[in-house]
């Protein structure tokens, strides 16, 4: 399992800047050829991968933060707070995230990686909130929480000491899944032209490849590597989450 993850992960985080050498599309001197502007595609790929990953991580952190806070409060408090927060969550869940992302993206003229992360993060937290809430609800009823309660611990202490640590595995997996989804969402946004205006990412590379009709023109070295990279990253993250699930489940059940 672990070998599979590291084998397919393309974590070449090389801080190579875009090497702009003006050439048309061959494929010898430059391992991955060049694009229509003559830029080194390998360099682009490496920078783009790093960028996509960081967008993924940032967006995941944002979504996780919002989702966990809302889910935990909602699950713990119950009652009216719970109902209200869940209604809010449902509303955001139902809103077509792509449209929202498009609206926000179109509104912001200059879109750097942080903004893109923000856009994606702000629209992907609902399922996290729901998942955290249900974990919270089930943990709340476990006897060890009763024991802490009877010891007179304050609510905050109970959340911090008993509940959150026991939710850690869940949170971790949510993070991994969010990251995978965020990277694909970024690519999607970029492909419709609403992605980054500054910087490079796998999605942007694909976007350029697409608008300059590389498929029709047979410039496979342009769109295949970034696409494969994206798929490999997403797939390896999903594999990671599966492996984590296997690791955590027996531990949670009985140590």
């Amino acid at each position, binding site marked *: 399992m672990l070998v599979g993850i590291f084998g397919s992960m393309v974590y070449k985080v090389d801080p190579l800047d875009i090497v702009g050498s003006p050439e048309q599309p061959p494929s010898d001197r430059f391992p991955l050829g060049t694009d229509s502007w003559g830029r080194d595609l390998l360099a682009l790929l490496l920078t783009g991968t790093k960028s996509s990953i960081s967008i993924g991580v940032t967006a995941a952190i944002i979504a996780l933060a919002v989702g966990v806070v809302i889910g935990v409060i909602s699950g713990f408090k119950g009652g009216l707070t719970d109902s209200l927060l869940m209604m809010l969550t449902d509303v955001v869940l139902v809103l077509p995230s792509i449209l929202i992302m498009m609206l926000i993206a179109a509104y912001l003229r200059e879109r750097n990686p942080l903004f893109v992360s923000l856009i994606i993060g702000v629209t992907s937290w609902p399922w996290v909130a729901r998942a955290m809430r249900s974990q919270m609800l089930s943990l709340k009823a*476990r*006897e*060890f929480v*009763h*024991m*802490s*309660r*009877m*010891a*007179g*611990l*304050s609510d905050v202490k109970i959340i911090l*000491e*008993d509940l959150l*640590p*026991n939710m850690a595995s869940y949170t971790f997996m949510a993070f991994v899944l969010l990251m995978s989804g965020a990277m694909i969402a970024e690519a999607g946004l970029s492909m419709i032209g609403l992605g980054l205006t500054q910087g490079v990412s796998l999605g942007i590379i694909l976007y350029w490849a697409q608008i300059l009709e590389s498929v029709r023109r047979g410039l496979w070295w342009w769109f295949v590597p970034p696409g494969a990279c994206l798929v490999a990253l997403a797939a390896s993250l999903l594999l990671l989450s599966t492996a984590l699930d296997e690791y955590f489940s027996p*531990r*949670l059940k*009985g*140590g």
Partner: protein
Amino acid sequence: MLLEVRNLTKVFTTGLLKRREIVAVNNISFDVRSSEFLSLVGESGSGKTTAAKMILKLFPPVSGSIIFEGKDVVSLKRLEERRWYWKQVHGIFQDPYASYSPLHKIDRILHQVFTLIGDSSSDRDSMVRGALREVGLRPEEVLGKYPHELSGGQRQRIMVARCYMLKPKLILADEPISMIDASTRASVLQLFTKLREEYKTSVIFITHDLGLAYYVSDGILIMYKGSIVEKGSPNEVMEHPQSSYTKRLREDVPLLYKKWEGF
């Protein structure tokens, strides 16, 4: 009177549009004196655990009152008030595994109670060790370990050690020995007797085991579908049962010294 429970009721509602109501505890009333062992007997679904959790203030009743030493328990809201209550009234649960957070060492279960009794740190360690010895455990053997490294019997004894540190007036023990090996059960029961002898602690045993209730209690309450259907001393309940449920229970419990008819 140590504890007075009057008309205690708990209803659970499920569903948003089509609300369904489950009456878990239906208008029960009983008294507990100090130094008294009482058993709340019932099968699963009888409401006995729900009643216990309400008395432990783990969730609120829908109606009814719980009076402890003259004070209304349900209305206690502030943290200091609740802490005062939990120092006097404490609980032990059935599953000696689920009562511990799997990620923390067992020491935490014991150290937690200092929130209630507050002692200077120098005394803490000796208090914990003393309590462990009272329940027949060697502190070196159990301190610093995780729950899964100890046996069920050890875990349950640590729970009783926690009570030894608190010296509560009332303990609610939910199936305290059902998940322990038969050969060690009697010694865990003795721990409760010791608490009663030394500190006049009363215990409400929540159990499905009529045998245990008969053996250890001064009084038995039998619950069925949320209501108390029988009340009395063990002899009264076994020899002159009033309700048909009790009679059926008495006939269906497997006995050691008498054989069932037709078997």
